[in-house]
């Protein structure tokens, strides 16, 4: 509930309402709540009885024309008490919600936005309030201060304020780090305006959900208090009705049904409405799992006929997400010991192509191919166990973001050694020795130290070296690298590319290097395949691509590299504004 995305606010609020109303549960809940509210408001019109007046003759009266729901244990009209009691519940719930938000919301906003001492103090107070047992405090207040149930609800509101405080503070903390809040500050907006425009809208959605929950909770607690006999006798309430019904449960069990039904329905609709709003906020559409991984469209050529130096053969590969096709009939061949560059802009399908070879696409992806074979083995229709055996041993993978691909909870040594123990069946000491050798091989100066380190203790470049060590640890024949140097500094990138090249040559591995950088391609690739909108538009040896690109798109990509272009030169004269941009 606290993880509501910042994408939920004013422009989307109407949509939120509409989306909530599309949920039949929400509509039913709103209808029930509407009925309860209408009934309570229209109580004087619906019944002429005074809910507090007892008529001895009507004691436990049966249902009749003048008493549609009969009379209770002391001769009061049940319908009147039910309708007027609804007022008490609704008012009580509303009071609790208002108080909880009036106290919790501003504190949470200010705490989250400014942090510092205010946050610390508010945090302390909130923790103390949370440590206080709510029911006992309310019992004490009702015994010592006032018999009024509404006073108890005010106290309850204060006691529930910490829930609101924490929720709002957490939401604010999440958005205040957003760049657009920085941008607003630079744009000269005051804090009040930033809060109103950029922070508050994000907080509103989770608040609505929280409010429905506080409301339901308050009604329940209020009824509990009244059931215990607290509250003024002149204040009809569902809890008091339950109390009366309880004493007469053997004579007139129906008396329990009416207040029970009213309370149950109100609380249930309120909570379910909260859930419906939350569901409407959830941006993700329900996932229709299409687990048809690697299914052949047609039988491909017999795999055994391939020339021996072909390591990977892909033909007619398609990847689709529902209606959307992201890879559209890709043919690729990687020879043993060859480095293939897969180049394209974002969204061209290059990573999707690489991932489908690894079998790493999400379940929604529908992968089909005429042929997908690795080293004489058909990859289509492999089950998960076979695929797992192949990944690591047969095909290694180097990801783009080194840091997010190391588990922060485990030492690097463990993360390196574990796959080797599993795939190569090495003993603990053998795996350790080999891991240390690998770390030394990838150019880490102090392998022992890195072996014992946690991922956050090493730099990004070092982490990428560790991942490269991991990728080659089980001697794969093919290495798939997805933008392996994009997240690194240029100087580190050069070293990492050196390392990849020397490892690749030393072990004779085939490699698919996914990249958008033609400099990287020029540095390391033997052959290049250029992708655009899910198709390969050109594939040729690297030298030929650079010397004379055949396809227009390749030419366009090559032309847009800034490298080697003329420098802008020094500022000659302080430029005078030629024209004002906005006036």
């Amino acid at each position, binding site marked *: 509930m606290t993880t509501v995305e*910042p*994408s*939920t*606010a*004013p*422009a*989307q609020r109407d949509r939120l309402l509409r989306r909530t109303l599309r949920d039949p549960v929400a509509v039913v809940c709103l209808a029930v709540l509407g009925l309860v509210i209408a009934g309570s408001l229209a109580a004087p019109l619906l019944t002429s009885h005074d809910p507090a007046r007892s008529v001895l003759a009507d004691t436990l009266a049966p249902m009749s024309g003048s008493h549609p729901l009969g009379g209770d244990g002391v001769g009061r009209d049940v319908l009147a008490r039910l309708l007027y009691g609804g007022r008490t519940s609704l008012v009580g719930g509303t009071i609790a919600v208002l108080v909880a938000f009036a106290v919790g919301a501003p504190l949470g906003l200010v705490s989250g936005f400014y942090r510092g001492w205010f946050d610390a103090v508010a945090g302390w107070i909130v923790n103390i309030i949370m440590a206080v047992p709510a029911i006992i405090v309310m019992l004490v207040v009702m015994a010592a201060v006032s018999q009024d149930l509404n006073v108890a609800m005010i106290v309850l509101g204060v006691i529930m304020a910490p829930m609101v405080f924490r929720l709002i503070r957490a939401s604010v903390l999440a958005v205040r780090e957003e*760049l*657009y809040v*920085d*941008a*607003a*500050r*630079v*744009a*000269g*907006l*005051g*804090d009040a*305006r930033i809060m109103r*425009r950029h922070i508050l809208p*994000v907080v509103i959605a989770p608040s609505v959900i929280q409010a429905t929950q506080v409301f339901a909770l308050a009604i329940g607690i209020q009824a509990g208090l009244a059931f215990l006999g607290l509250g003024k006798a002149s204040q009809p309430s569902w809890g008091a009705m339950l109390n009366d019904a309880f004493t007469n449960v053997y004579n007139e069990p129906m008396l329990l049904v009416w207040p029970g039904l009213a309370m149950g329905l109100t609380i249930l609709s309120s909570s379910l409405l909260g859930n419906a709003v939350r569901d409407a906020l959830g941006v993700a559409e329900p996932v229709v799992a299409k687990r048809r991984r690697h299914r052949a469209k047609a039988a491909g050529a017999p795999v055994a006929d391939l020339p021996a130096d072909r390591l990977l053969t892909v033909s007619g590969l398609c990847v689709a997400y529902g209606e959307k096709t992201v890879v559209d009939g890709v043919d690729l061949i990687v020879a043993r010991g060859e480095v293939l560059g897969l180049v394209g*802009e974002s969204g061209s399908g290059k990573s999707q192509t690489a991932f489908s070879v690894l079998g790493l696409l999400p379940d929604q992806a529908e992968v089909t191919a005429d042929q997908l074979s690795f080293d004489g083995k058909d990859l289509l229709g492999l089950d998960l166990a076979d695929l797992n055996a192949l990944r690591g041993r047969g095909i290694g993978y180097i990801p783009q973001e080194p840091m997010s691909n190391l588990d922060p909870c485990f030492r690097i040594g463990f993360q390196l050694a574990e796959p080797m123990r599993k795939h190569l069946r090495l003993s603990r000491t053998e795996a350790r020795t080999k891991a240390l050798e690998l770390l030394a091989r990838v150019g880490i100066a102090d392998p022992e130290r890195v072996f014992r380190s946690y991922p956050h203790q090493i730099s*990004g470049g070092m982490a990428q070296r560790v991942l490269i060590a991991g990728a080659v640890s089980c001697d794969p024949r093919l290495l798939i690298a997805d933008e392996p140097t994009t997240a690194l*500094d*240029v*100087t*580190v990138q*050069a070293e990492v*590319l*050196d390392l990849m090249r020397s490892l690749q040559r030393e072990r004779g591995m085939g490699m698919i290097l996914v990249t958008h*950088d033609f*400099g*990287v*391609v*020029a*540095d390391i690739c033997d052959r290049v395949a250029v992708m655009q909108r899910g198709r390969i538009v050109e594939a040729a040896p690297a030298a030929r691509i*650079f010397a004379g690109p055949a396809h227009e798109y390749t030419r*366009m*990509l*090559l032309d*847009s*590299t*800034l*490298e*080697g*272009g003329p*420098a*802008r*030169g*020094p*500022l000659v004269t*302080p*430029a*005078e*504004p030629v024209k*004002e*941009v*906005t*006036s």
Partner: protein
Amino acid sequence: MTSLLLELDDVVVEYPAKGRGKEPFRVLHGVSLSVAPGETLGLVGESGSGKTTLGRAVLGLAPVTGGEIRFEGRPVSGLGRRERRALSKDIQVVFQDPYTSLNPALTVMDILTEPLLVTGVARAEAERRVQKLLGHVHLPQDAARRLPREFSGGQRQRIAIARALCRDPRLIVCDEPVSALDLTTQARVLDLFVEIQEATGVAYLFVTHDLSVVRHISHRVAVLYRGDIVETGDAAQVTEHPEHAYTKRLLLAAPVSDPERQAQRRAERLKAAAS
């Protein structure tokens, strides 16, 4: 002196360390540089060099604990919130990430009119100006009614540029504004930056890690290494014949898109590293 727009004089930025009695973490160790009106100063450095922090210090978003930042000769480091807000007319920003720098819930029109409305411009006038601005950054006129997520990365960056421009600033701090974009988009957005500068005479403090980008856009280049400026000079000179060892390394490390020349450059780099 007064001919300079922005001056940094021995600026130190430190973040307090967590825990009592620990040394604060010093990001900038006394950086001095200047930007003239209408000039682009490219600021190059690797991650962790402090280049983003320097930009944020100029914007008043990072704590300046030593030295002085002057804008048009007037000290602006350590201003109060109110004075800082007044300065926002003159100093603006374009951030790196075009996905998180625009509030996803606001329409483009709301995003762009906001800085104008706070200064008391009437809504109709603000909207008229924004329509004009959208043309300047080559976005379609109907863009105003749409939400940021309906745009590609390059287009979002154009929106961010329009937001920076809407109050006619004198200086825009550009924090890696093209590094999240595809190469083809990168070139077009850089051209837009140049075009706007030539039209309005705005100055850029252009933070980037990419030598070829900095060469394309900058009049002068400063190289930041571990919190210190190690080299300053004309763009051509710094990016072709660097003097400092670090800049040389940076230059040799940047791959060129030509296999033969790249092989040469690699050999040079390995030779330099060995010596």
